[in-house]
């Protein structure tokens, strides 16, 4: 047997994620101008002035996306009691900014999607004005509808009896192409919507979350943490007893506020769980599926961040508890497997590094 080392031919597309725009072309100048206009408008909405570094930055949209001070101001605004109304200036700003069709500015709007979706869905049952939030969500939905051309997203579930780029089958090479692969629809085709009809609400938010997931590697950690916190609210269920994995609930003493007592009701949870109960929402699959994909990233993604990991873990436990309450098999399987993966990662303490060379020479020295 020979070891042939073929030339590496993997010219995959690599998108340029460089954070600075060097304003050379007209497009770049225009996008710079758009960003500056957006920042000016924003500063007239927010109470305290924006840091001057923003507008002088080489890539203002990027700076805006990652400026934690501005983010927290906007977040506070979005969480105010009447924030979602149709005449709300911030919603208007988010809508206009997204419609600017500048990709960097659109990322800024997406950064706040967890809070918009979170506050919106939890408030639906409270009969509050929400037209402002709905306008933003519909803009995201419409964007995704256009970019997908309304098509559904499908996945061909592989069948190992066909050989693939990663494996060969020993069977005869005469391929029976008619053997059908399992076709799974992971996101159904999209109809245009001009308003949020209540039975389409979950779908519209779900599609907006799909868009968020497709950009999630560019989202700041804070945005993902917001998302995880809302998952707990939406689940409306305390999942602390599943800290030791989904299979056996366990008493976990966590600073005395151990959560074995179940969901609210027992009065011992300093009113926090009561607030959670309030935001509990129906979780149909069209909404839950994108939630779980985002959560998978937050929990198992390549860039580890402790605070995010904690938040995602908590969200996953809550959603697991919720899926038990709904006796929802797919959700039990998906959240349960995430919890088991976390448990395995925590239990494997071995320092075995497979990329370390064996130390045969140590003995000779």
């Amino acid at each position, binding site marked *: 047997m020979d070891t042939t080392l073929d030339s590496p031919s993997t010219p995959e597309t690599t998108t340029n994620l460089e954070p600075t725009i060097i304003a050379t072309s007209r497009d770049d100048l225009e996008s710079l101008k758009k960003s500056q206009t957006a920042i000016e408008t924003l500063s007239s909405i927010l109470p305290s002035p924006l840091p001057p570094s923003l507008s002088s930055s080489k890539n203002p949209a990027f700076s805006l996306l990652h400026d934690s001070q501005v983010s927290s101001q906007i977040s506070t605004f979005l969480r105010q009691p009447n924030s979602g109304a149709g005449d709300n200036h911030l919603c208007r700003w988010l809508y206009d900014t997204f419609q600017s069709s500048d990709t960097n500015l659109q990322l800024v709007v997406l950064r706040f999607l967890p809070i918009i979706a979170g506050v919106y869905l939890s408030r639906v049952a409270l009969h509050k004005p929400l037209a402002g939030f709905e306008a933003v969500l519909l803009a995201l939905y419409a964007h995704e509808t256009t970019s997908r051309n309304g098509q559904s997203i499908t996945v061909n579930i592989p069948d190992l009896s066909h050989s693939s780029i*990663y494996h060969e089958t020993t069977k005869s090479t005469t391929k029976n192409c008619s053997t059908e692969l399992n076709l799974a629809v992971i996101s159904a085709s999209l109809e245009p919507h001009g308003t949020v009809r209540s039975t389409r609400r979950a779908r519209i938010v779900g599609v907006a979350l799909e868009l968020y997931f497709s950009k999630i590697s560019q989202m700041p950690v804070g945005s993902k943490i917001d998302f995880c916190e809302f998952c707990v609210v939406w689940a409306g269920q305390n999942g602390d007893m599943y800290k030791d994995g989904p299979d056996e609930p366990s008493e976990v003493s966590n600073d005395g506020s151990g959560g074995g007592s179940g969901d609210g009701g027992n009065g011992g949870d300093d009113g926090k769980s009561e607030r959670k109960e309030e935001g509990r929402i129906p979780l149909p699959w069209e909404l839950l599926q994108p939630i779980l994909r985002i959560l998978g990233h937050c929990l198992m993604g390549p860039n580890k961040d402790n605070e995010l990991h904690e938040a995602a873990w908590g969200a996953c436990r809550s959603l697991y508890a919720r899926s038990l309450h709904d006796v929802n098999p797919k959700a039990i399987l998906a959240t349960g497997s*995430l919890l088991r993966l976390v448990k*395995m990662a925590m239990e494997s303490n071995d320092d075995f590094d497979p990329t370390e060379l064996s130390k045969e020479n140590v003995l000779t020295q």
Partner: protein
Amino acid sequence: MLNSEEEELIIHGRSEYEKGNVEGTLSAFDGIDLHAAVQELQPLAEKQPSKKGRPSNESVHSSSQQAASLVLEALYLKAKSLQKLGRVTEAADECKSVLDAVEKIFYHGIADVLVDNKLQEIVSGAVELLPELWKLDGRNHEAMSAYRRALLSQWNLDNDCCARIQKGFASFLLYSGVEVGPPSLAVQIDGSYVPRNNLEEAILLLMILMRKFYLGKTKWDPSVIEHLTFALSLCSQTSVLAKQLEEIMPGVFNRVNRWKAMALCYNGAGQNKVALNLLRKSLHKHEKPDDLTSLLLAAKICSEDALLAAEGVGYAQRAILHAQGLNEHLKGVGLCMLGLCLGKLAKVSSSDHERSRLQTDALKSLDEAIVLEPNNFDLIFELGVQYAERWNLNAALRYAKQFIDATGGSILKGWRLLALILSAQQRFSEAEVVTDAALDETAKWEQGPLLRMKAKLKISQSIPMGAIETYRYLLALVQAQRKSFGPLRNLPQIEDDKVNEFEVWHGLAKLYSRLSHWKDAEICLGKAKELNEYSAETLHTEGIIGEAQGDMNKALAAFINALLLEPSHVPSKILIGGVLSKMGSKVSPVARCLLSDALKIEPTNRMAWYYLGLVHRDDGRISDAIDCFQAASMLEESDPIESFCSIF
């Protein structure tokens, strides 16, 4: 070539590395221009005459290969040292240069005899390390390329190493959130499966890993099945997952956990019978009889089938019993399942007394459950249905409204329940307002059931032209839907919301027969029959038309055929009873028998009571007749336009 001084530096660097002094290693290697050394090594393998032929100048080769080995080791150790110092970008660059060098130097491959362990170890290490370094550096696209390069080029990796890389890549594809795009055309082999997106590629890799496990090529790694579970559940392909679980070799995966996971899979794929059989095994007294998830799932499956409901009651009671301590939060769910199973059981009970007891118990369980689970949407809905079915329409109305409020009107069946309850209260115009409101909140493809209800409400309000108009719109919708969903019609995920064309034609046939438009009625009936030839429903309508036209034999034949198709078809039983009751006292015992039978199945059917009253009257049993008429008149005020169980 390296001079002896450089060789010594490398050996020194290696020993410093092994002592853990990575700074020392780096400073030792600083004295050598490793990249220049790589350049010099380049021409090495090109002289090699053939891959298989044993070269005569073996010693020359092996000495230059030793030098190559040394340089590569130095580069690799440099990468490792930089990694340990947290300088991942530089580490990745060095690591990549190891692989580039290997590919250049051994462009034509290396004969097996010449591959020493050390060299292979360096190559494998670098192949595995590179994607990890790019990930640490946050360079996702480089990481993806490194993974593909590792898996699609020939590096002679051992099985374990290859499995680790495959798992790493699968997990990167699933969780990184970066869509990597399909592999380049260069690696695509004709006729082989090429994944088009992250999910496909991840699932493919995980399935290959699963196969390696059961072929015994690599050691079992429990995390692989968990990644696969996550990926396949997201795609709703739990039946594929069940097959994967089934293929796991015994001894590595706890069998009860496997049964439970498979039961969840099959339930998720709608194969409840298989799921229940698996749960029966896992809940056996020698296995894990107290497992709450399994008990609740089993109870849920049983609650959907009247013949299994009794078994379900047992599971639900066990679930309630074991919902203690840390599991107490699930007690309400257990009570809810108990209520549902009892309610289902009541439907098939043979005696009135038992039925009424079961219904009371069912409502009691659900009422207890709602105290524990005040925000459980499913439970609120079920309470509405159960109260409606027990004719406690005010309570039912309250829950239906609460359901719409709590869900923000987002779930269609809530609207339908509310409209049906209002129609049962004979508040037809309000029911129509609700239906219209629901239509406003629905996209057109899901409007079918609402439009059907609206047509029926128009009929109830004696606005037949309005009803016909609505049916016409419904038909247009059906036809549009057939066109736009044409190619994907086989997908079960899309099937749910579709309007049933057969129902539309049949509804129209019934409407026209009510209006005595016999010709139109027969045309519509013909259309319905084209779609479903053997249906008790159409035969029933055919009988009604025959009866109305005075053709009693035709009517009877149609009703009897309907009964033959569906022995428990209540409307046909009633109408046979009705026809027979007019044929004199000779056949009245048969009529009475059929009507009593119908009442056993549907005790609240007023038409059955009415005809039974007629039979009693004609036979001279006046007091029995009075009772029946009384029952019929009481019930008259409370018929919903569609049965409450039609909502599911």
